[in-house]
């Protein structure tokens, strides 16, 4: 472990560095070997690993916005939707674009890049009017944006097919690989995107822009006075986060083959936010751990749980228990565990050293905060 008193970008040295390399290599090997392990142990998790790893990509993107730059975004699912619908527009037989409908769909991989770029543009569109907002106020606006996007999709059936959804959607065509029937190539595709995301956000965090994000999160006025351009720094965080979401959305659309506005509701934004809070805001590896834990609980443990409950019901001849829909308890259990976590460990399970320090620091006095708002309003 690197000394916590040192900065986050100091590369670990000597034994610590070797340990880091071993851990990282182990994690990568495990991720790559997962389909084999899954088959050997007959776990049947291949279809579950895909959404779990995809949501980790989402969490990594949101971590840039919320964890690095400190901009609370509650409407992140909107970019996910934008990415997914961009993919559908570019490759689906029911696309609003005539050239796509008439048998010239865009290549999947190109469509993926375009979708991500479209989402990034929307990130800037949302970011630009909210530059002056912070904290609660920003959260409200992003929340609104997250609500508006699915609503627009639902109410423009001539373009998006509304609640009926878009189907089918193009999938990647690589000779010799059966994306249409086999989940394993999808898994590798998403893991590849995930690894690129980790490297990318990690490098940014340890660079000039990463420092600027951290400074901006700590004190906007001081950051601006030290030469940080608040406008471009914020917009870059927004658009980068959105582009990750766009990537994930485009893959998700193609994997599911059908998308409808109901898939991109507020819960999705919250679910991703919970992942990064659980794992530890601002810490890439914490975020991955949070995503894994939450994904595991959500996709796998609930199945076990429901099997156990149904089993008990059968054994005791209690038909009510036997037929209980445990997925209804999901939200309750999430809620309770989040409340407990916030009380016991508000910094998350694997926090960055800085975030831990922030949360345990005394709060700024009210007058100072008021002064700050006055100054920020005048900066613009």
């Amino acid at each position, binding site marked *: 472990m690197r*000394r916590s*008193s*040192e*900065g986050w*970008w100091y590369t670990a040295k000597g034994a610590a560095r070797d340990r880091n390399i071993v851990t990282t290599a182990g994690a990568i090997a495990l991720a790559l070997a997962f389909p084999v392990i899954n088959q050997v142990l007959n776990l049947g998790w291949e279809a579950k690993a895909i959404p779990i790893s995809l949501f980790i990509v989402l969490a990594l993107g949101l971590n840039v916005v919320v964890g690095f730059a400190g901009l609370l975004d509650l409407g992140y699912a909107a970019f996910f939707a934008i990415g997914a619908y961009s993919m559908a527009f570019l490759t689906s037989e029911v696309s609003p674009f005539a050239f796509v409908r008439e048998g010239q769909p865009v290549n999947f991989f190109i469509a993926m890049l375009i979708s991500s770029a479209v989402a990034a543009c929307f990130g800037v569109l949302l970011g630009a009017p909210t530059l002056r907002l912070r904290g609660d106020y920003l959260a409200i606006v992003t929340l609104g944006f997250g609500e508006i996007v699915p609503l627009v999709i639902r109410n423009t059936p001539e373009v998006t097919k509304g609640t009926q959804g878009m189907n089918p959607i193009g999938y990647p065509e690589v000779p010799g690989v059966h994306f249409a029937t086999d989940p394993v190539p999808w898994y590798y595709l998403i893991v590849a995107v995930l690894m690129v995301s980790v490297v*990318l956000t990690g*490098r*940014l965090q*340890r*660079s*000039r*822009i*990463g*420092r*600027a994000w*951290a*400074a901006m999160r*700590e*004190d906007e*006025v*001081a*950051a*601006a*006075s*030290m*030469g*940080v*351009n*608040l*406008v471009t720094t914020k917009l*870059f965080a927004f658009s*980068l986060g959105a582009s990750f979401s766009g990537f994930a959305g485009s893959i998700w659309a193609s994997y599911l083959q059908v998308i409808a506005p109901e898939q991109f509701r507020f819960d999705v934004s919250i679910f991703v936010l919970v992942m990064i809070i659980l794992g530890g805001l601002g810490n890439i590896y914490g975020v991955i751990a949070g995503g894994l834990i939450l994904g595991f609980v959500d996709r796998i443990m609930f199945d076990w749980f429901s099997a156990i409950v149904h089993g008990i019901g059968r054994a005791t001849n209690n038909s009510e228990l036997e037929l209980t829909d445990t997925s209804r308890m999901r939200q309750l259990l999430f809620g309770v565990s989040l409340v407990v976590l916030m009380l016991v460990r508000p910094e998350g399970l694997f926090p960055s050293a*800085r975030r831990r*320090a*922030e949360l345990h*620091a005394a709060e700024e006095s009210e007058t*100072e905060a008021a002064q700050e708002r006055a*100054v920020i309003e*005048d*900066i613009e």
Partner: protein
Amino acid sequence: MSDILEARSVTKAFGGLVAVDEVDFTIPEGAIVSLIGPNGAGKTTFFNVIAGLYKPTRGTVHFGGKVISGLPPHQITRYGIARTFQNIRLFQNMTAVENVMVGHHSRMTSSPFDAILRLPRERTEERETEVKARELLEYVGLKGRDGVTAKNLPYGDQRRLELARALAAEPKLLLLDEPTAGMDPNETARMTAFIRRLRDERGITVLLIEHDMKVVMGISERVTVLDHGTKIAEGTPTVVQRDERVIEAYLGRAASAAS
């Protein structure tokens, strides 16, 4: 000696309250100039106008021949003005060396894409910035505290760190807002000597807001006095000290009559 900064009839009003009223002000290059005045005289507001945190309601500020009033603070920093704050505003949860490296932000050129690709020039720039930051920490007397989180530093060290962070922006003009506030006489004397050293060794022009008259009179070549937003006196420390309006502003009419 030419003027590095020139403020022409700068006015800043907040609604009906005129905090700075038609102030003309110049700073000769290489000088140490002080701005004094009773509480609420508009010193910090004037400071914030120069640094770009406030746009002046009327009037212009020129720096090195260019108009800087109305520009955002980060651009003004790039032109060569850096500052410290009256109530220290460090990046509390970043380490000392990280704080100073943020200070160097405006002198760095690497884009996020350079960072993503880890281009050699980006790596070199990061390394050089870090070396420079450590040198600056040593220069202000924080040798060996590089890895300490800012908020865990003692008060005096925090002031020094803020100074190092401002110096990392390689300013031509340094704005110091009460740099000795809350310091004991010993620390104050050291800080005063340090400010003079900054000017003598690095050729940095200094504008100082200060309450401590001993500091002001000791190092400034020129003192400007603000009261109720207007300039009431200007000149060498000894001249200002004897100015009746200044004594009146600080101590009230009766005191000036009695003296």
